[in-house]
Structures are given as structure tokens and as C-alpha cells.
């Protein structure tokens, strides 16, 4: 932290930060991985930032969830701790180096989730004031029913905290999940304007959404560093069929 602590909107780095937000089943991860492929093929230095980076913080989160020890406050704080680690180790260094950093979910996930759990909206925004403001934050807007169909189709069982079971909306896991996600959507909708998120209509085809995302990202990439040698191998593999 040498040199003092920079606040949201005050960081100045040569790199670019693109993040995606949206409820489970909005298709945001698919869109981000397609964007990743394209940026790499274009020769950008891309860094994909994963959640839960530090094993120490990760252990506390996992144990807290497993034993159901987390209150809305400690849930919020342990995730902020994890996010701080990610910021200090996996977001700021690559941005300083001029990379394009991609993140699946960002601080807005925490704002939505924690506020639904009863935490003060002002407090949680202050808590994350150290976060780097993204170059573009995409919000994949999805009606709840569409997202529910995608989720209930083919994923693992819904987890206790994901369904907001800790705040007692319903005793039924699926019903609680539905109520919880509906409230999360309300919070996202409020944030679109507050943080200038770019909404993408996630009911459109994957291809149409990706074309729009690439157009917006492309506009924000002027002057960004590329690797000297174009990645012909990647291009070759893309040509074989993974290209959309």
C-alpha cells in the first residue's frame, strides 16, 4: 500500500478492466469467455481474474459457509477481504503492466447481495472504495424466469447462501432462490445508472450479444498494449471451429 490508498475512480493505469455482472443464468460467463478468446486472438495481453484467490481467506469463507456461521456482516466483510486480495494481487499488478483484465462478477455483485441481506447500502459502498473502477462494466439483464430455466436445466444443486436461505425468505430452497434473485435484480437495476453500467439484453442470441460487447470493448481499447508477435497458433485453433 506504499504511496497511500487510491479510491474508486482515482486509479490511473495503462491497462483496461472489463467486468461482467448479472444474476446466475444470465449468460455473463459465456460472454466473458468469448470476449477473452477474441482479445487473445487480436494479440492483447489478457489476464483473467478469478474469485477466491488467497487460500487463507478462501478457507475462512468456505468454513463459515459450511458451518453456517456467517451473518450478513461477516459474509460481507469476508468477501470484501477476498476481493481486496484479488485487487492487490490480481487486478492492480496486471493493470499496471498494461494488460486487459477481465473479471466475472465485481463489486456490484457484493452491493446487490449484501444490501438484500440487510446491510446498509452506504456502508457497503464505502467498504469497497478501494476497488478499481472498471473501464466498462457490463450488466446482462435477464428476466428471472429465463434465468431460472437456464439454471434449473443443467447445473449443480443450488447452495444455501446462494439461495439466501440465511435470511429466511422461504423454507423451500428453490422458492427462496427465486425470491432472493428477484431482489438481486432490483438492486442491479438501481445500480445501472448509479455506476454507469452498460446493460446488455441477455434474452438476445449469444452471437448478437457478443457482437455488441466486442464493439464496445473495441472502442475502449485504443492505445492498449499488444504482444509483439501475433498469436498465429491461437488464430489457427480458432479457425478450426471454436470461433462463433
Amino acid at each position, binding site marked *: *500500500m506504499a504511496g497511500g*490508498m487510491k479510491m474508486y475512480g482515482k486509479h490511473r493505469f495503462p491497462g483496461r478492466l472489463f467486468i461482467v455482472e448479472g444474476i446466475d443464468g444470465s449468460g455473463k460467463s459465456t460472454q466473458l469467455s468469448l470476449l477473452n478468446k477474441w482479445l487473445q486472438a487480436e494479440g492483447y495481453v489478457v489476464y483473467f481474474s478469478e474469485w477466491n484467490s488467497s487460500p*487463507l481467506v478462501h478457507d*475462512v469463507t468456505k468454513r463459515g459457509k459450511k458451518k453456517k*456461521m456467517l*451473518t450478513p456482516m461477516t459474509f460481507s*466483510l469476508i468477501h470484501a477481504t477476498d476481493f481486496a*486480495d484479488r485487487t492487490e494481487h490480481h487486478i492492480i499488478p496486471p493493470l499496471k503492466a498494461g494488460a486487459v483484465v477481465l473479471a466475472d462478477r465485481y463489486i456490484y455483485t457484493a452491493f446487490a447481495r449484501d444490501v438484500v441481506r440487510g446491510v*446498509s447500502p452506504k456502508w457497503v459502498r464505502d*467498504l469497497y472504495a478501494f476497488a478499481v473502477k472498471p473501464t466498462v462494466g457490463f450488466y446482462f439483464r435477464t428476466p428471472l424466469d429465463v434465468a431460472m430455466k437456464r439454471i434449473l436445466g443443467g447445473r449443480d444443486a443450488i447452495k444455501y447462501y446462494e439461495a439466501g436461505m440465511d435470511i429466511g425468505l422461504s423454507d423451500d430452497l428453490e422458492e427462496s432462490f427465486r425470491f432472493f434473485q428477484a431482489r438481486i435484480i432490483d438492486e442491479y437495476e438501481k445500480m445501472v445508472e448509479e455506476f454507469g453500467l452498460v446493460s446488455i439484453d441477455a434474452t438476445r442470441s449469444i452471437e448478437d450479444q457478443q457482437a455488441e460487447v466486442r464493439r464496445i470493448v473495441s472502442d475502449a481499447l485504443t492505445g492498449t498494449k499488444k504482444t509483439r508477435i501475433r498469436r498465429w497458433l491461437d488464430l489457427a485453433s480458432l479457425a478450426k471451429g471454436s470461433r462463433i
Partner: protein
Amino acid sequence: MAGFGFFGEGLPDIDLDELKGKLIVLEGTDGVGRSTHIGLLKEWLENHGHAVLDTGMTRSALAGKRLKQAKEGHTLGGITMSLFYATDFADRLESEIIPALRAGFIVLTDRYIYSLMARAIVRGADPEWLREVYGFALKPDAIFYLRLNIDDLVTRVLQSTGFDYWESGMDLHMGEDMYESFVRYQKWLLAEFDKMVETFGFTVVDASGSVEEVFENLRQRVELVAQRNGY
């Protein structure tokens, strides 16, 4: 007098009127004798019929163990460490301190948010940000700041445990050796504590006397707080 309050944006779902106990904080740099006095005060209060909970930093069921490891490994960044401590504190506040206050206990705590803030500030965290983050903390009934000047502190530490890596702020690379680093680091912490005296209403207790003298001073003040009627 009024009951408890929060510093800023408080905890969700807490009814402050239910908190009948007293929250008493002992603050001060490393080596001023906080834990000795907590032990003595606890015994004295219990002999006088008060139920006492004594608690300290990094002891939470949720994060205490991992936080100790993080400290030893010193691989986490400054903001991450500050928030890890805040998580640990929130867990103790919600699962130990508040339930004890609800049951009418006197809670004696060895350090509180002030030490956490001072340590984070010397590691570069923004003071305003820290105050907002710790807005969920309860305002204590009394904060006793055990104060020693730097020379007395060095003597005291040499006589007991010697210089410790962390208490010397060696992670900040402030001096050529442990002694130099300890002096600079603790001086800096002292300056931060001194700034907080007025802001947070610390009662300064001179910690340079004998254990008996300091304890007698503290005991009289704690007695007044314990007798104070909450409502």
C-alpha cells in the same frame, strides 16, 4: 444516560435497547501491560459480583486461526490485512460481545477498533475509509488508553519478551534492525493513538508506574463505569 450507539452505519437486526451490559476497552501500544490489567480487573469485578467477559483481538471462531497464519506468513497486502482484521472483529462483536452485553455482562476488551485502525493507518490505509468501515462497531462505555512514552516502552519490552517481528513493524522495512524498527514503528503508533484521544474520547492512564499503582488508578475509574446506571 442514553444506551449504546454505533459509530456510523450500524449492524442490521440489532436492537440496541436490549444491550444492558457495559463495554470497557483497554487500548495502548504493545508492551504497556494491557493483558495484565485485564486479568486483574476481571478478578476484582467478579469478586464484586459482576459477570465479566474478557476478549481480545484475533480470537474469533470464524477467522482467528487463519488470521494468525496470515500474519506469520505476511503474504497478504495492506488493504486485505485490514479487512481480514475487520472480519475477525465483526465476528467477535456479533457472536461474543453483543450476546454478553445482552445478558448484562461487563465486557473487558483488550484492544478495540482503535488498535486495528492505528495499525492499518501506519500500513497506508486511509483513515476516513477505516472509520467508515468500522462504522458498525458499538461505541464503548469507556476507553482507557494505557500510555507509556517510547523510552519506557523499550525498557519494558526488553525486560519481558524482547522485540517481536510484528510488534517491530519489520514488514514495513523501517529500520536496519529490530531495535531501530521497533522504535520507529511504536513511535508512529503512539502518534496515531495520541491523535485519537480527543476524536474518540479516550481516558489517558499513565502506565509508567508500578502494576499496583496503575491498577489502582484503573480500578477506581472502572468502578465508576460499572456503577453507572444504564437507564
